[in-house]
């Protein structure tokens, strides 16, 4: 339990630093954040928006991995883990899409632009939606688990194609060029530290939520089968 309190404090500190550290044109103190031309204060979003996008991918990969595990083990535990990962991935994908849209509106005027990044996160959202639509359409537990796992595999196998398609699609509005324009190290130390801390913290949060989800499912199954266990 102490670890969880630590996680709570960690993320609270990340939030305070991410939103509170001063942003100056010429960073002088070790804790100053640089002003990114064109973004200024809005660059702080990187501490919160990117981790949600990262977690939506983590959720997908985890769902895929546990799905494959289920297909080989036939243990319903693995399916619970897979579904839990997908559920969280879905949540964070929604958050990433929404925060991305809000940011797009404030930076470039429109909520949605169909640039490669936005399109990929949208497709991920569709895949999650399809995954849960499939799950809710199958009554038998084992069949549901198998079909869901199979779909995760097919989706996992076709997703990488987007990486290759994106370059062929028209130029992106995503600010990575702006941040990268400063050369190899696109974030100064303070920014990088807060960013990595946020990434770590959110991943920890994901892991905690996932464990809770899985435990609840386990308990539910144990309660429904008092003789089992």
């Amino acid at each position, binding site marked *: 339990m102490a670890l969880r309190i630590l996680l709570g404090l960690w*993320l609270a500190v990340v939030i305070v630093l991410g939103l509170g550290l001063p942003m100056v044109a010429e960073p002088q103190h070790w804790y100053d954040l640089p002003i990114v031309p064109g973004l200024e204060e809005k660059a702080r979003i990187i501490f919160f928006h990117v981790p949600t996008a990262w977690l939506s991918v983590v959720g997908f990969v985890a769902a895929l991995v546990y799905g494959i595990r289920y297909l080989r083990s036939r243990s319903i535990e693995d399916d619970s883990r897979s579904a839990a990962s997908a559920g969280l991935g879905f949540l964070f994908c929604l958050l990433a899409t929404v925060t991305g849209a809000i940011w797009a509106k404030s930076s470039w005027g429109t909520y949605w632009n169909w640039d490669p990044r936005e399109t990929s996160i949208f497709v991920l959202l569709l895949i999650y939606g399809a995954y849960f639509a499939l799950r809710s359409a199958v009554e038998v537990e084992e069949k549901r688990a198998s079909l869901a796992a199979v779909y995760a595999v097919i989706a996992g196998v076709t997703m990488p194609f987007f990486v290759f398609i994106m370059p062929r699609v028209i130029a992106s509005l995503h600010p990575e060029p702006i941040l990268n324009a400063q050369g190899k190290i696109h974030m100064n130390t303070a920014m990088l530290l807060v960013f990595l801390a946020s990434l770590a913290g959110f991943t920890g949060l994901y892991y*905690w939520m996932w464990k*809770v989800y899985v*435990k609840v499912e386990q*308990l539910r199954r*144990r309660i429904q089968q008092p003789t089992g266990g």
Partner: protein
Amino acid sequence: MQEFFGQNALYVVLAVVLVIWAGIFGYLYRVEKKIKKLEQQIGKP
């Protein structure tokens, strides 16, 4: 009021996010506690 908001918008956001986070954290913590209790209850028989 609007001036205050305009100048300190960022800190308002900070406060809001902290409150949201406190809520999420508190909720997760409570759920975890309940799970522990249930696990002990079930683990026995």
